[in-house]
Structure formats: structure tokens, C-alpha cells
């Protein structure tokens, strides 16, 4: 009997009633999670009169692209060319992501594969840094960045983000599962640590690159550079968008278009990287 049951649902220890109950529960929760996102998508295509309907509709009746056209006009009207804001975000995100992946991998390799004086303490410090939010360091960070003379430059936003603790932690845990034999044979051939790292370790941790990249992208994509980037021509995309949104009621439509743009880029990136991210996370737990 159990055998038949197993063939039907291909999972053991599951009752059909339980499956249905779980499915209903999950569907309700998924609706709660997705509802605001569905609204964002619909709002982006609503013509202006549908914004002022009583009672308001969730779904768009007559979808239009006019919000995106208005956004385009408003962009071309801004006194710093809009492409400049986009460029700023691209620079911050690309340098931040690439730098973070390289620096974290370089530091993760010795911590994962070599024993040397100080390795334990350094790694424990990184684990400790996961236990508090970066916001507690914001006051001294502001002073340090001013003292370094990098206030009001891209570096003020990029440098602190490069050494995020979670990235190093995930990368180190992932590197630990690379078989030592791979590195040993290279060592016998006389390869230096740097060559082993670059030629053997790095190509084997591609899923982890993408994971660190995704997490870092997420952190930097939403940055408005508040407090650090004061010159208008250095401010990121996100800042410019908030400015347009704050323009008032007549901007509802543009705000809708902007909302869709801000959520779709991270979602597309996650869709592309998802399987790699999950693969990386399988090794990321906290061992003793």
C-alpha cells in the first residue's frame, strides 16, 4: 500500500489532505506577498484617469505606455542629463560588485583552505560582524570617510560595501567543499598560491561569484548615496527617481513607471542567477 502511495505522490510521509491544506495556506501567503507587486505592475500601465477612480481598481482597465513616455520627457528636462544618473549607478554597481567578488574570494581562499597564525581570529571577526547591522558603524564611518578625503566621491559609497561580511562568509563556506586533491596536484607542478587561486579555485566557485554579485547588487542598486554624494552629477539613478516621485500628485503616473523599473531589474537578475544562488547557499550554514 505504501508503495502505491509513494508512486502516486513520489514523496513518502505525505497525506493528500495535508498536501491540500498546505497548498491552500501557501496560496494565501503567496497572494499577500505578491499583492503589492501586482499593484506596482498594474500602476505602471494605468492611464492618469484610472489613478483617480473611486473606488480605485487594482487591475488596469486600459493599459497604456503613456507613463513611460512622460517619464522620458521628464528625464530629458532634468538639468543634469538623466543618462548621467544612470551612469553613476552603473559605475557604483559594477565596481562594487566586481570588487566585492574579487576581494572576498581572495580573502576566502586562504581562510577556507590554509591554516596559518590568525586565520581563526580573522574568520571569527567576520562571523561576529554578521551579528550586528552596519548601521551601528554609520557615525564613525562618516568621520573616517571624511578623514580619508573621499567624501563626495564614488569611493565613499563603494569602499565600505566591498568588505561586507556575509559575502566573505558565503564564499569561504563554498570554497571549503573544493577537493584538496585539485590543489595538491597543481602544487606538485610548482604552481604558486596565486596561480592556484586564480586558475583552479576561482573557476570552481562560479555559482558563489553570482551569489555574492546578487547580494551586493541588491545592496547597491537601492543606494541613494545620501550623506556622501552631494554633487548633483555624482548622484545615482535611485536618487533622481525619488526626486521625480516627490514632484507631487501629477507625477503619480511617472511614479508608477519608475516603480516598475526599480523592481524589474533585481527580479530579472535573480531569475537568471537563482539556481546558482541556491547551489551556493547549500554550503553556507554555520558549522561548529
Amino acid at each position, binding site marked *: 500500500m505504501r508503495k502505491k502511495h509513494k508512486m502516486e505522490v513520489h*514523496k*513518502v*510521509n*505525505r497525506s493528500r489532505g*495535508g*498536501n491540500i491544506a*498546505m497548498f491552500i*495556506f501557501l496560496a494565501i501567503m*503567496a497572494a*499577500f*506577498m505578491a499583492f*503589492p*507587486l501586482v*499593484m506596482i505592475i498594474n*500602476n505602471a500601465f494605468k492611464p492618469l484617469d484610472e489613478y483617480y477612480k473611486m*473606488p480605485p481598481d*487594482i487591475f488596469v482597465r486600459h493599459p497604456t505606455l503613456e507613463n513611460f513616455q512622460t517619464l522620458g520627457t521628464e528625464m530629458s528636462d532634468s538639468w543634469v542629463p538623466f543618462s548621467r544618473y544612470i551612469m553613476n549607478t552603473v559605475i557604483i554597481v559594477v565596481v562594487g560588485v566586481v570588487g566585492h567578488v574579487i576581494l572576498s574570494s*581572495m*580573502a576566502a581562499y*586562504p581562510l577556507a583552505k*590554509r591554516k*596559518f*597564525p590568525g586565520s581563526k581570529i*580573522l574568520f571569527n*571577526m567576520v562571523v*561576529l*560582524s554578521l*551579528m*550586528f*547591522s552596519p*548601521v*551601528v*558603524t*554609520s*557615525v*564613525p*564611518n562618516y*568621520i*573616517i570617510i571624511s578623514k580619508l578625503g573621499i567624501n563626495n566621491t564614488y569611493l565613499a559609497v563603494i*569602499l*565600505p560595501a*566591498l*568588505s561586507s561580511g*556575509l559575502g*566573505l562568509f558565503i564564499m569561504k563556506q563554498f570554497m571549503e567543499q573544493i577537493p584538496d586533491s585539485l590543489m595538491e596536484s597543481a602544487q606538485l607542478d610548482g604552481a604558486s598560491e596565486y596561480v592556484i587561486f586564480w586558475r583552479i579555485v576561482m573557476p570552481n566557485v562560479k555559482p558563489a561569484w553570482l551569489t555574492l554579485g546578487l547580494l551586493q547588487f*541588491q545592496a547597491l542598486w*537601492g543606494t541613494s548615496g545620501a550623506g556622501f554624494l552631494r554633487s548633483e552629477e555624482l548622484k545615482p539613478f535611485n536618487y533622481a527617481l525619488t526626486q521625480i516621485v516627490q514632484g507631487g500628485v501629477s507625477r503619480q503616473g511617472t511614479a508608477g513607471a519608475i516603480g516598475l523599473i*526599480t*523592481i524589474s531589474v*533585481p*527580479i530579472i537578475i*535573480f531569475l537568471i542567477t*537563482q539556481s546558482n544562488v*541556491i*547551489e*551556493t*547557499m547549500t554550503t*553556507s*550554514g*554555520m558549522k561548529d
Partner: protein
Amino acid sequence: MDKELVGIKSGVSSNAGRKEKAGLWERIKRNKACYVMLAPYFILFFLFTVLPVLSSMVLSLCYFNMLQPPTFIGLENYAKLFLEDDIFTIAVKNTLLFAIITGPVSYFACFLFAWIINDFGPKLRSFLTVIFYAPSLCGNAYFVWLLIFSGDRYGYANSFLLHLGLITNEINWFKDGRYIMPLLIIIQLWLSLGTGFLVFIAGLQTVDRTQYEAAAIDGIRNRWQELWYITLPAMKPQLLLGAVLQITQSFAVSDISINLCGNPSVNYAGTTMVTHLIDYGTIRFEMGYASAIATILFLLMVLSNKLVNWLLRRVAD
């Protein structure tokens, strides 16, 4: 004579010390490449994480306004925080309320959803992962709650409640002290299926399938027993990391409060320790005072993490 002996003794011991040091130095030299590779990351880590935590502790004992050099005032900042600053008391209360509600609820939600999703086929599983992860993935997407709970009749919540006749006047949701906290808790929960959720999804996939089949033969009857006896023990490392991520996040609630309710919010109903810190650190430039808040927050986060970690390990063993 005695002196000489002491001299010899100390000479011997310092020699031994040198020998030991030489061993250490040898090992450091042998691993030169390791330190070179660690250097870029850890220089930045020290500069932007270790140094700020330490200097924050030092600054919390000073009066510092960024213009004049800091002056040492002992524990005055802390005394002021706990004895005079009524808003700080509200901030602590709100922060603890957030942490106690959203921390555990989001932790269990992350696990529960990941666990249910894991029973589906790969396609549906990755679709549902996107749905649940999207709010935290999308950074500023929470602004949409302003439309749902907007204070006028065009707001979805207001128009729905007016339509049903449950209210007669519009509610100004984010400007009414009674509603701010419950709303922020709901929105924080909506946002909280983050990295921890992904870690759980991944962890569930590592549990060996054959273990479940063996367990069924051994007399495990239903999904709850299976969860308790097989899945949870197998996922201990992921459960520990998930707890750390969720605790840290639940103590740091601030962006949604500032952006949806303003800083300060009406009657300080949405004030948390972090918004209070931001208020003093970036608006009033009382860096010493802000550092005292940061130090308390740091200790609160780290100690709760250590406590929960210890508890989880005890439960697991």
C-alpha cells in the same frame, strides 16, 4: 647574586620566548601569500567595520559635534539616554517590540514557506521562490504600501473599508499613532523573507532523499514527525545562519519607518533605536550621543545573537 640569578632566569625565559616567536614568525613567513591575499579585504574590513565599532565605543564617552575636538565626559551620554531622554525609552520599547515579534515570526515563516515549497516540482518551486523573495529583493518596493494605506479616499484600504461601511471617515494610517506600529510590523514581515529564506531553501535540498525513505520504513508516519526527526537535525548549520540573519535584521528596522512615517513620526510611534541614532548622528550632529546609542544597539544585537545561538544549539543536541 640573587639579582644575577634573576637576570639569568629572565634571560632564559626571554630566549625561550624568542624561540617560540621565531616559530611563529617562520609560520607567518611561510604563509606570506595567504596574508597578501587577505590584505585588501581585511584592510577595508578593519577600516569600515572594526575601527568604527571600537571608535564608536570610545566616542560614546565623549561630547563631539564634528566641529570641535571630542571632549571626554565619562558616562554622561548613557546617563542622559536612560534617565532624561524619554524618546529613547520609546525607541527601545519599539525596537524590542519589533525584534520580539518580527524576529521569531519571520524566522519561522522563512522556514515554513521554504519547507512547503520544497515539496513542489522544480519549476513551481523556483516560481514561488521568486514570489516570496521579491519584496526583500526589490529594495524600495515597500513604497507601494503608501498607496495601499494612503490617508485619503483614493487609498485602497480606506476605500475598501468605506465601501463596506466599516468606517465613516478616512483613516490617516501613517500619521496616526495607533496604526503606525501594527502597519510597520506587517510591512517588515512582508520584507523579511530575505537571504535567510534562500539559505533554508538551499538547506532543504541538501537533506538526503534516501533518509526520508528509510525513515518511512522505520515507522515515521507523517510530515511533522519527518520534519522533527530528520529534516531539522540535518539542517542545523542553515538554521543557525538563518537565525543570525533574521535577528540582526529585526533589530535594525528603520528605513520603512523613516520613509513611510517620517522621522520623527507622529507621537514617536515609529521611532526605533536606529531612527533615533540617525536623528542624532546626521541631523543634530551630536556624534558622541549617537555613538552611545550605536554602542547599546551593538551590544543588544550581538548578545541576542549569542543567546539565541546558544539556545538553538542546546535544542539541537
